[in-house]
């Protein structure tokens, strides 16, 4: 996973690093790369044609009329001898063959998540977990997307507790910069582990990512959906307009495959949402005891917790273990803790096969 072709020994030599920007179709990868690149990204946005219908799922991003058919790349000159490249992965499934090439020798990866279609980034998480490439998850805060707590996303994605999850605005230089800083810090923090070899034997990774118990025996029908915002107390307790069901129309239109354990998450359509809000008892919203720790700032004034004056985009980096709420019987167990509750486990990403 080393990424520097050159040792930089000598004057004017380059050392080049690359960072992979992954995420689902329409998650904002091109925007993120363009926000920090000093060169015009080699984007090849093409008008979505009728040939894409059925291939490029526009659920939730209906206004998207172009898509990236070639790879995005952006360039950041760190110094006269260091250059950082950002490569955006093609979002469409039919271009996944390019991922191996993009990830080869990469420093790390940023997975952009769109909470309207969170399941789109499951394959990215699976992929980077399998190839042991350090990655972080950046939740791109679209203007019209529901706001979720990063920890909720962590649970839904079944992430290793060490993986940073943060909010970002892919359009803002400051925000993207913070994403990249977080990634490089994460890579540095992961180094001792990498140098000692993978933290987990590959077999464990294959069976169930990270430290989570493999939820294989749990009914997985609803594993590809975030808890609907309506049922989530902390969103309701704020002035945020409760995201209508429309935000989830994409994933929920398909009936869940009957108990099908996700044989191949790389090729199957998202098995749909689930009868989640009512039947899967999330913490009741009435008391909203966790409004404090989970408090999501309203969209207009995102920077709240840990404000960083350097960040115009507004960022809220949630260090993985820190935000575990105090023990409350109604609360889900802190993310990353072994969790045998099938209800909670049902919200999770299906482990990669």
């Amino acid at each position: 996973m080393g990424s520097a072709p050159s040792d930089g020994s000598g004057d004017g030599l380059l050392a080049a690093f690359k960072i992979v920007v992954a995420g689902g179709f329409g998650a904002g990868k091109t925007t993120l790369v363009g926000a920090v690149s000093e060169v015009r990204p080699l984007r090849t946005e093409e008008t979505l044609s009728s040939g894409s219908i059925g291939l490029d799922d526009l659920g939730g991003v209906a206004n998207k009329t172009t898509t990236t058919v070639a790879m995005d790349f952006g360039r950041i000159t760190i110094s006269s001898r260091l250059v950082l490249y950002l490569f955006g992965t093609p979002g469409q499934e039919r271009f996944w063959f390019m991922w191996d090439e993009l990830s080869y020798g990469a420093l790390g990866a940023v997975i952009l998540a769109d909470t309207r279609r969170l399941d789109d980034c499951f394959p990215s998480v699976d992929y980077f977990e399998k190839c042991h490439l350090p990655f972080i998850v950046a939740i791109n805060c679209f203007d019209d997307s529901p706001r979720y707590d990063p920890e909720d996303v962590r649970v839904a994605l079944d992430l290793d507790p060490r993986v940073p999850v943060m909010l970002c605005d892919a359009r803002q230089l400051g925000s993207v910069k913070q994403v990249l800083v977080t990634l490089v810090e994460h890579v540095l923090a992961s180094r001792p582990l990498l140098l000692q070899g993978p933290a987990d034997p590959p077999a464990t990774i294959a069976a169930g990512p990270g430290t989570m118990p493999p939820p294989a025996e749990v009914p997985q029908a609803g594993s590809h959906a975030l808890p609907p915002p309506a049922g989530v107390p902390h969103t309701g307790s704020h002035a945020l307009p409760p995201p209508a069901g429309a935000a989830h129309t994409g994933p929920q239109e398909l009936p869940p495959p009957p108990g099908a354990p996700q044989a191949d998450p790389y090729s199957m359509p998202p098995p749909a949402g689930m009868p989640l809000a009512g039947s899967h008892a999330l913490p009741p919203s009435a008391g909203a005891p966790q409004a404090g720790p989970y408090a999501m700032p309203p969209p207009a004034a995102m920077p709240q917790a840990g404000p960083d004056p350097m960040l115009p985009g507004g960022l809220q980096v949630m260090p993985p273990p820190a935000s575990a709420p105090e023990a409350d019987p109604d609360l889900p167990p802190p993310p990353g803790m072994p969790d045998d509750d099938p209800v909670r486990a049902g919200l999770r990403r299906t482990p990669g096969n």
Partner: protein
Amino acid sequence: MPPDDKWTDRNAGPVVRPYALTGGRTAPTDGEILDLIAIVATTDPAERDGDWIDLSPEDRSILGLCHRPVTVTDVASATLLPLGVIRVLLADLIARGRLSVLPQRRSGDQPSTELLKEVLHGLRAL
């Protein structure tokens, strides 16, 4: 623009199919695939005045870019040629001794922590 010229408009795309430049080859002859961020440079600083008569215009523009070390990605970006084509052309130039690839780490190696910290500081300073 005269109407006759509209087929050569830049937006019309390449007049010649990209892989015509490589003689139809889609992979380098020696099988070595250059990494996206592999760094190439001309082997001889005097290459500028070298014998370019046997070189195609694409080869010449590539050599012109490689007077200082550049990455494969930058070459592809600057020449507006597809990456696959650039890889074949670069491999040909390397095989002919016109270009060399700067020493690379093996893929399993880690960049040094010092370099990573330099990257981190550079990012913070953006």
